[in-house]
């Protein structure tokens, strides 16, 4: 075991290759340090809330860098928040119900509704530094990314098999060891996939988060989103395509450098008893694993560090089984509860005061908008289901087709639909379609992929003996769909539709209201209502339409999707 690596080290070819790898890794580290310097100078420089956005493609690398940093920072915050929130919700029995309900509601609130509060607070916090505005934009992206990650980690924690938990308890794992050896690994795969979805969502709303008008104040942060929006606004088609190209390039690069390796790496956390046949691979991960530099780093720095942390926790876990700080804990909890209740009451009072200024016509137009958007969400879901079910089943049943189609679909899905809006709008306006119909198309662009991916996964999961039964008994086409395919993909279809419907509601914000070529295109809808209220600084309408949207989404979830989900979990579950 120990002899073989030594021998292979001696081979010359191995050695040079490894040094090359180290150089690459070193270059990456240097680039990272330089990037930090650039960002720091920018963040701590004087505040320029409305930067002049250049149309030149030459500005794109820097803009792309700023946007990536924003999304990365927002993602890091999301990850930390998701871990903490999921952990507390899963282990604190008293708070669990409340925290899950809060998550459910927050998830249904569109990003833009957070905008005024977040932005004004941040600008007030750092009035003289760019950091305030920047941090506001990052927080906005954060609000669009964090909820499903928190849900995923919470659900993972809740589904850890009982015997694994008992093993950790009987062998007296410290909280730290339990977290690193049981909880985090168990949640890793869910976290990685949800991270991908979240970051894709971040790109989707990037345009909205980087450039917006809040009442009389104009916010414009240098970045890809604002570049695209400015280019589209002034009708500079060439610049739109440059921006689109840059965005797709960045997304593909991130996919290659981050998500592929993350997926390949997280494969080892799969909770399976036997080794699966197909394992994801990643060239980057392979490179990182073979780099001698990283190996030394983990050996010299990481291993002793984790050893130190572990023995600290291990020793503390051993004697401290007492209940001394109990009273102290109760007092802290009560104080926190009182403070929380105070804040909530104050906010409620403020909300009621704001809502009192609503006029009758505003209420009517919001409700009418809600109905219109509801209709659009339904139509877009129906269209999505209509084409993705046959297409997904065809792809899922045919491994050859799946191999060809899946990477394409993945790229198509990772391109944020918002980036395509200007192009599509141009086409729509040329053929004379309005935004009323166009917004359905835009919603569809953003959400149909969730359905497609889930249907493909569902079709692939149908056991081949069931398909063979259908062959043996010569089921006719309709019988085959009715008895094998539809029940087989049902749980997956429901999952996809739930995600898609949430996405469609959120997308209505950007789909129904659009600044384009110097004018504002909009149609009747709840999303348009929210966007317009943000633009004009009408907080009463903003608050009211946000509440309406959250109520609609949550009640549809409870009354339609959850029962369907339960049905899928019980009747249509295929156990292998």
């Amino acid at each position, binding site marked *: *075991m120990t002899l073989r690596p030594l021998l292979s080290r001696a081979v010359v070819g191995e050695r040079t290759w490894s040094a090359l790898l180290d150089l690459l890794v070193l270059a990456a580290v240097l680039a990272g340090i330089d990037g930090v310097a650039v960002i720091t100078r920018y963040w701590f420089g004087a505040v320029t809330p409305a930067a002049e956005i250049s149309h030149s493609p030459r500005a794109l690398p820097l803009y792309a860098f700023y946007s990536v940093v924003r999304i990365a920072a927002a993602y890091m915050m999301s990850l930390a928040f998701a871990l903490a929130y999921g952990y507390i919700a899963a282990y604190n029995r008293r708070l669990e119900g409340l925290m899950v309900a809060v998550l459910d509601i927050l998830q249904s609130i569109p990003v833009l509704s957070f905008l005024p509060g977040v932005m004004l607070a941040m600008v007030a916090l750092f009035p003289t530094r760019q950091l305030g505005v920047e941090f506001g934009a990052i927080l906005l992206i954060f609000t669009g990314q964090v909820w499903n990650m928190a849900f995923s980690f919470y659900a993972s924690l809740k589904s850890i*098999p009982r*015997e*694994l938990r*008992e*093993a950790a*308890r*009987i*062998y*007296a*794992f*410290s909280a730290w*060891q339990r977290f690193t*050896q*049981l909880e985090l*690994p168990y949640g*890793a795969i869910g976290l990685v996939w949800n991270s991908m979805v979240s970051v894709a969502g971040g790109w989707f709303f990037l345009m909205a988060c980087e450039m917006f008008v809040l009442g009389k104040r104009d916010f414009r942060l240098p970045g890809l989103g604002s570049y695209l929006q400015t280019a589209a606004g002034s009708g500079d088609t060439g610049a739109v395509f440059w921006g689109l190209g840059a965005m797709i390039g960045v997304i593909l690069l991130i996919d290659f450098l981050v998500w592929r390796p993350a997926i390949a790496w997280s494969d*080892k*956390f*799969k*909770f*399976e*008893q*036997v*080794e699966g046949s197909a394992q994801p691979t990643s060239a980057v991960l392979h490179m990182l694993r073979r780099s001698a530099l990283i190996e030394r780093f983990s050996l010299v720095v990481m*291993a002793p560090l984790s*050893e130190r942390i*572990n*023995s600290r926790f*291990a*020793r503390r*876990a*051993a004697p401290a*089984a007492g209940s001394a700080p109990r009273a102290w804990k109760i007092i802290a909890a009560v104080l926190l509860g009182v403070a929380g209740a105070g804040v909530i009451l104050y906010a409620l009072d403020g909300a009621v005061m704001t809502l009192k200024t609503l006029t009758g016509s505003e209420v009517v137009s919001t409700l009418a908008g809600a109905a219109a958007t509801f209709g659009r969400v339904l139509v877009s879901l129906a269209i999505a289901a209509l084409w993705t079910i046959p297409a997904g089943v065809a792809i899922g049943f045919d491994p050859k087709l799946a191999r060809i189609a899946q990477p394409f679909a993945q790229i198509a899905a990772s391109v944020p639909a918002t980036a395509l809006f200007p192009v599509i709008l141009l086409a729509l306006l040329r053929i004379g379609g309005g935004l009323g119909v166009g917004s359905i198309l835009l919603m569809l662009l953003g959400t149909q992929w969730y359905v497609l991916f889930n249907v493909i996964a569902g079709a692939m999961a149908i056991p081949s003996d069931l398909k063979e039964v259908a062959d043996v008994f010569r089921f006719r086409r309709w019988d085959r769909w009715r008895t094998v395919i539809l029940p087989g993909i049902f749980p997956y279809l429901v999952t996809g539709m739930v995600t898609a419907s949430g996405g469609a509601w959120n997308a209505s914000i950007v789909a129904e209201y659009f600044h384009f070529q110097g004018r504002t295109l909009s149609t009747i809808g709840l999303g348009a209502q929210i966007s317009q209220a943000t633009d004009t600084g009408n907080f009463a309408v903003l608050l009211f339409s946000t509440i309406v949207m959250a109520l609609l989404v949550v009640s549809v979830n409870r009354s339609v999707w959850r029962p369907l989900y339960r049905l899928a979990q019980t009747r249509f579950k295929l156990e292998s």
Partner: protein
Amino acid sequence: MPAIIEARKVEKSYGTEGDGRIQVIAPTDMAIYPGEIMALLGPSGSGKSTLLRILTGLARPTGGEVLHNGQPLTGPCSNVAIVFQSFALFPWLTVLENVAAPLKALGVQAAEREERSTRILDVVGLDGFENAYPKELSGGMKQRVGFARALVVEPEVLFMDEPFSALDVLTAENLRGELLELWQSHKMPTRAVFVVTHNIEEAVLLADRIVVLGKNPAVVRTDFPVALDRPRDHKDPRFTSLVDYIYRVLTRPGEEAPPPVLPARPRYQMLPHAQHGAVAGLLELLADHGGRDDMYRVAAALSFEIDDLLPVVDAAALLGFAKVEEGDVEITAAGTAFAEADILQRKELFRSAALQNLSLIREITRSLEARADHTLPDGFFEDLLDEHFSEEEAKAQLDTAIHWGRYAELFDHDTDTHQFFLPEETSPTAPPEVAAR
């Protein structure tokens, strides 16, 4: 001798006070003493595993208390280990990391962790697999890792929750043997072993003391020492009489007979439930394979699961047509004669072998011959068998006897009138008139 872990009047119920309250464990006393392997046996759903969790401190009893070396237990018991039914290995850790994890929890330094884990992996026969991941191992090897992880902390008591029930029959048998060997040679650094199982033979094979649990709610039905020498033999009549006794206790609630005094009276021979055609197939195969072959290969050649093959082999052995030795089946002279005979001769050979070797077949034939009308009701034989077997098993025994008796044309059975009778115009000693099929 003071108990290591002692449960006093522990009980467990779920739900709130009042009507919705379900008691799963009635107040129970139980103690684990040093130097013994204790088996807790009970039907599924009887609360065995819950009791194990109460004894280890993983679950709290709703009443009563658990003492560990005389001290009341408030949390998970320190210094015990559990081997789980599902192995409960961390799939993202290597074999070595899995085994070292409990040491890490104790704050043992890295070098010592590795040294101790490697040593214990050696003991369970897994050296060379340190860097494998659990998913790369077979079920038996995974459970070996489970044992290594449990033993590495040198637990006072080794708890095992159905440790072999997720494994196939032969692997389980093998692991049981190795466990016993470790225990008897004192290579296992533990003072006592507590095993939960629903497998009666497993309990009798392993345990120094067996506690049988009844269900709804769980209550101790019997608690007795197993005074059998090791190594124990499944075929030993004293072994089988203990198995039967436990079977009776489990299947007949309310009847609290004392455990049998060993050595017990000679026992009724049990017919293995095999088809005569399968026996013939086995013998033909053996004759083709040079008279002797490995049990596994025979199973593969006949496309049988090993579990399904065993009764066939037992039947052949009972009839004197084959012998079993160290996992091999070997055909006897009588067996070879049978394999080479034609259909009519086979019946003849089978008939004489059955009359000579199978007590139930002989008894049915003799009883029928003794009757003037050559018929007897089912009840007659059922009463006879009930003394030796469970009701269900008695029925199964009669079914097999009917199947074999018909083939040998010794007797027949009318399912409508529930009667056994001798075939007309044929006496058991005369050659049959018609060859069936």
